[in-house]
């Protein structure tokens, strides 16, 4: 009989294989050489110090008033393209409202803005939007995409993370308070280490723990290895736009990140206890708890501890035999012998009489445990420890003598300190590029999480550096940077050579410009026009709810699970989508909906919401038939159309009521006044559609009638108005942002 070699291949090896860029991994510690960083590698644009540039002087006076405009126009001049004129006020209002708040303007806001002729009307609007809490809810989603935020583990059991929402709420709040970005980073990496006396400061470290996890993997060491590697890779990708993850098995194929650099970065996280939630009491909770404990008989504390001890024994025994199953208390007790069972019963009896202790909030947060030795892991395999390493900064980015940490007792705080030094070559560049991308659709460097040699070089390198310096000089303020960007002329340009407010001559002239610039720069690399963007799934849903006055103002807390069609939930395990919250909760903003890794909310799913299994820097903007089916046929769409029909009918009655309802619907969905021609066509539709229903002999109780509006005089006409609203919600003018 042949002798077969053990062929146990671990997850880690599989990860190693799947992440490897070329099979060149060292087999033994002796093979493992540390390749020095070359001067050539150091000369890549992204690693050079941020340059000090002045805005160039441009001829066109309209482009001289704003530093961003000077850079952008200068690049246009150099490449012989001409810009379209700025968009009209109605388009601009819709653009900046969705961009900064993720919500459409209300009819009242539109009216006010269109009527405001003051020279700083637009600047006032921008300030109002930035001050609104909707701003934080909007930009938090951008950040949560990067943070691969979800409220479950993923994999088979996809267990819930009951405290994950605290991190989401923290991000919203931090953005609304305009927390400086350096502090934003410090808290997310090391809030617990920096503020040990404030347990709530740890909530931000939820960032590190948002990734997928397989708690029932065969070996817990393997689990830890996978999670720590994922954590280090995410930190590198999000804050540095360096794809560190490529170096977990062997040196990065293209960029100057060696396997040693990867595991030195991971070493900052090595000693964290990561697989359980920790108490993060508020000062008040803690005081109440201590007071209660002080007056409580100590026998209860001992009983509590002993009970936990027994249950741990039972749980571990059970898991030895049934690694696939999460034991219930009954199953745990089944593993304990009779003696233990009796003891457990006695303890339970005793504790039933104990005065209850006030609960302490728990959080999915980082906490340092016993120091652990960090290693390079050969081939990325958790069974093959290589040389010991210490936490230190990637050599490509660190000056000599800067490599070692000064405070090994708080490693993550040291990492954060280094990342947030004002002259860091990458951190500010990376974030201003992301901000630019969130406003323009594409970053100045088009690969926002890859500033390495495979990423695209910035189209406007001097502007990028100028923005980075300005950002640091302005105290790392997001809101100042948003204001700066959206008040530029470059941001305000028209998408297309048409605007309802332009004269025929203006339109003709704009068409000429478009034809020339389109030929010279079809991809709009030089920003001669605004790139049209499709609304994200969250914005589509939120905007429909705003249009019909139904968006809930409730905020915060665990993610809400609104009802879903049974055919959607049947691909899940049991109880994975138990409806939570009440009817109003189901109409909260999209950011407050429950994020399950194994099932994205269907509307968001079809409209390219990322899957949260890895950091997502830029969403797809796909166009599919499934999107159309969802938007046209779903219960949500019809319900919103019915509410909208009810809402617009509320404001009209008597003669010309059709025209006024149509006008209202245009305000609410397209966020602009309806043209006379559009009103006429709308009225024709309403009467044609009502006639169709009449011809079908439809009974009133079979119709989708307006909701929450006045009782309609003519149900067939009212049903036609619902159809009209549904069509508006599906029109390109609603789904796209000019």
């Amino acid at each position, binding site marked *: *009989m042949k002798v*077969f070699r053990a062929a*146990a291949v*671990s*997850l880690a090896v*599989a990860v190693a294989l*799947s992440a*490897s860029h070329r*099979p060149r991994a060292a087999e033994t510690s002796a093979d493992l050489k540390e390749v020095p960083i070359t001067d050539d590698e150091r000369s890549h644009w992204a690693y050079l110090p941020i340059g000090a540039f002045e805005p160039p002087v441009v001829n066109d006076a309209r482009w001289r008033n704003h530093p961003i405009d000077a850079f952008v126009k200068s690049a246009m001049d150099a490449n012989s393209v001409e810009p379209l004129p700025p968009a009209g006020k109605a388009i601009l209002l819709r653009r900046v409202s969705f961009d900064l708040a993720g919500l459409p303007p209300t009819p009242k806001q539109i009216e006010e803005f269109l009527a405001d002729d003051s020279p700083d009307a637009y600047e006032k609007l921008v300030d109002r939007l930035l001050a609104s809490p909707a701003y934080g809810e909007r930009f938090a989603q951008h950040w949560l995409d990067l943070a691969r935020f979800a409220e479950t583990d*993923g*994999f*088979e059991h996809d267990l819930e993370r009951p405290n994950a929402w605290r991190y989401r709420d923290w991000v919203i709040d931090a953005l609304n308070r305009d927390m400086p970005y350096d502090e934003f980073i410090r808290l997310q990496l090391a809030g617990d280490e920096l503020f040990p006396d404030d347990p709530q400061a740890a909530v931000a470290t939820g960032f590190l723990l948002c990734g997928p996890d*397989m708690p029932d993997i*065969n070996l817990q060491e393997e689990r830890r290895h996978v999670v720590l590697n994922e954590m280090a890779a995410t930190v590198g*990708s999000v804050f540095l736009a360096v794809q560190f993850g*490529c170096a977990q098995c062997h040196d990065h194929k293209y960029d100057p990140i060696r396997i040693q650099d990867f595991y030195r970065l991971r070493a900052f996280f090595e000693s964290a206890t990561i697989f359980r939630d920790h108490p993060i009491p508020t000062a008040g909770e803690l005081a109440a708890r201590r007071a209660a404990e002080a007056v409580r008989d100590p026998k209860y504390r001992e009983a509590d501890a002993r009970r936990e001890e027994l249950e741990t024994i039972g749980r571990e025994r059970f898991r030895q035999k*049934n690694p696939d199953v999460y034991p219930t208390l009954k199953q745990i007790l089944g593993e304990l012998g009779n003696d233990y069972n009796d003891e457990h019963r006695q303890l339970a009896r005793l504790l039933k009489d104990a005065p209850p202790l006030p609960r302490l909030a728990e959080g999915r947060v980082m906490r340092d445990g016993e120091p652990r030795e960090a290693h390079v892991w050969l081939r990325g395999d958790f069974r093959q420890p290589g040389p010991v390493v210490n936490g230190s900064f990637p050599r490509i980015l660190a000056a000599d003598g800067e490599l070692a940490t000064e405070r090994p007792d708080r490693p993550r705080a040291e990492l954060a300190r280094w990342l947030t030094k004002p002259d860091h070559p990458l951190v500010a560049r990376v974030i201003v590029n992301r901000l630019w991308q969130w406003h323009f659709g594409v970053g100045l460097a*088009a*690969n926002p*999480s*890859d500033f390495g*040699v*495979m*990423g695209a070089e910035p189209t406007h390198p001097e502007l990028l550096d100028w923005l980075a310096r300005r950002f640091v000089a302005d105290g790392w303020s997001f809101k100042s940077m948003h204001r700066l960007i959206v008040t530029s002329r470059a941001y305000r340009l028209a998408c297309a050579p*048409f605007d309802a407010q332009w004269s025929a001559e203006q339109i003709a002239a704009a068409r000429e410009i478009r034809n020339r610039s389109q030929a010279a720069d*079809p991809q*709009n*690399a030089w920003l001669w026009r605004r790139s*049209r963007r*499709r609304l994200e799934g969250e914005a589509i849903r939120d905007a429909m709810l705003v249009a019909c006055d139904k968006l809930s103002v409730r905020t915060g807390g665990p993610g809400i699970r609104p009802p879903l*069609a049974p*055919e959607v939930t*049947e*691909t899940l395990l049991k109880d994975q989508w138990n409806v939570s919250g009440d009817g109003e909760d189901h109409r909260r903003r999209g950011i407050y909906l429950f994020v399950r890794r194994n099932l994205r909310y269907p509307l968001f799913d*079809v409209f*390219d919401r990322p*899957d949260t*299994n*890895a950091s997502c820097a830029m969403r*797809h*903007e796909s*166009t599919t*038939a*499934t999107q*159309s*089916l*969802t938007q*046209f*046929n779903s*219960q949500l769409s*019809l319900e919103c159309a019915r509410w909208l029909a009810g809402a617009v009918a509320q404001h009209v009655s008597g003669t010309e009521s059709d025209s006024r309802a149509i006008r209202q619907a245009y305000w609410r969905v397209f966020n602009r006044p309806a043209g006379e021609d559009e009103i006429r*066509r709308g009225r024709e539709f309403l009467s044609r*559609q009502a006639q169709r229903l009449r011809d*079908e002999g*439809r009974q009133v109780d079979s119709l989708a009638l307006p909701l929450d509006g006045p009782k309609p005089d003519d149900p067939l006409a009212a049903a036609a108005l619902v*159809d009209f609203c*549904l*069509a508006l919600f599906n*029109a*390109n003018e609603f789904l796209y942002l000019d």
Partner: protein
Amino acid sequence: MPPHLAAQSRCSSRREFLAQAGGGLGAIALASLLSGDRLLHAAKGDVRSRPLAPKPSHVEPRARRVIYLFMHGGPSHVDLFDPKPELIEYAGQPLPESVGPVMTRRKVAQNPLLGPVKPFRPRGESGLPISDFLPHVSEVADELCVLRGCHGDSVNHPQSVYQMNTGSVLMGRPSLGSWVSYGLGTENDSLPAFVVLPDPGGGIKGGPVAWGNGYLPATYQGTTFRPGPAPVVDLRPQRQISAPQQQGTIELLRDLNRRQSESKGADGQLEARIEAYELAFRMQAAAPAVVDFADESAETLEMYGIGEKDTEEFGRRCLLARRLVERGVRFVQLYSGDTNGWDAHNDVLKNHSEYCRKTDKPVAGLLRDLRRRGLLDDTLVIWGGEFGRMPMSEQGKGRDHNPWGYTVWLAGAKVRGGFAYGATDPFGLRAAEGKVHVHDLHATILYLLGLDHEQLTYLRNGRNERLTDVAGRVVTEILA
């Protein structure tokens, strides 16, 4: 290398490339180059609007479409397709020490060996051995190309489900069906390119992510179809909306969009959305016709076991699969097995009797039906689970997961029928000869479809990602 795939590997800067690229590129180059495809609208309008347009293959395809029968939970190769005389001989004894340490899910390495629970017999003209569990499939043994040396990397269900579907044990990579849709598009623009028919009994271990698009555009994700008049979620309007009424609303929508396009000038992005609505409306008409079996003969229904209690459900899905590929759907994946499925931990006989009874006749009927319609020549049928099962017993009569050696079979697509390739060791524990890692299996499937697994790439974070990562060998030995 076809130009549409060559373009992106040359590319060092996206904008640089786009600036040079004129029109005339296939949809893939642009769609794949951009992590978000919003820049596409400035390129050729049709490029953006038809990401699923049929695309040329890399090499001469042997198959144009795929039906993948996924036996969720892990069917036992040593009880179905891989007879092991030694396993009978040594039944009741532990594995010899010479076998070395074995990683298992439930620490069964020291358990006594369990012999095949049903006898094997040579079948068909080829004499291919198949167990008595599968009398119907045995009758079409000469169609099967049995890969006995398959192996993967994880003893856990979700990781193995992900690996078999996406090449990676990690969650969230693009699935095989997505890669194929991305690489080849579809020949029917009224139906999705990649359709999944889940088991109505319950979700799989790993969830719908298993047929997800990962980092590929959402266009390429699997669309789930279910039997009954509304096979796709939101395929039909809500019940209060009648067909003529919806038609009226569609006309209004067309009018709104047309007027907007006229005033703003033609634009690929807006045109694409208009086309997506037209496709949705065509799908609304086409999909119910696919699931309506009224035009199938009684004899056909009988072949699939439709009308019999045990086989009705899976038979219907097999027939639906044939109807889908017949209409040009590129890739259909059927799951057999609820959340536990073929996961026979405590009793192989009981578990496999149930699942074989449900699937044996429908699978055989599907192969026969495809053959007689001339479809099997250029349709690839794949049968397999996420792994096989251990030769050692678990809880007496059951078996634990075995990713180290197991069987997957192929049929159609001009592969060698009545043929067994590769072998496990004498106990059926590990792949030993003619080994086919999951990457090799994927490379082979792509090859049969005319795609070179090294050329089918998608640029992400500076890396040309592949289904087969840095591995994969086409198993040319199985080509007829």
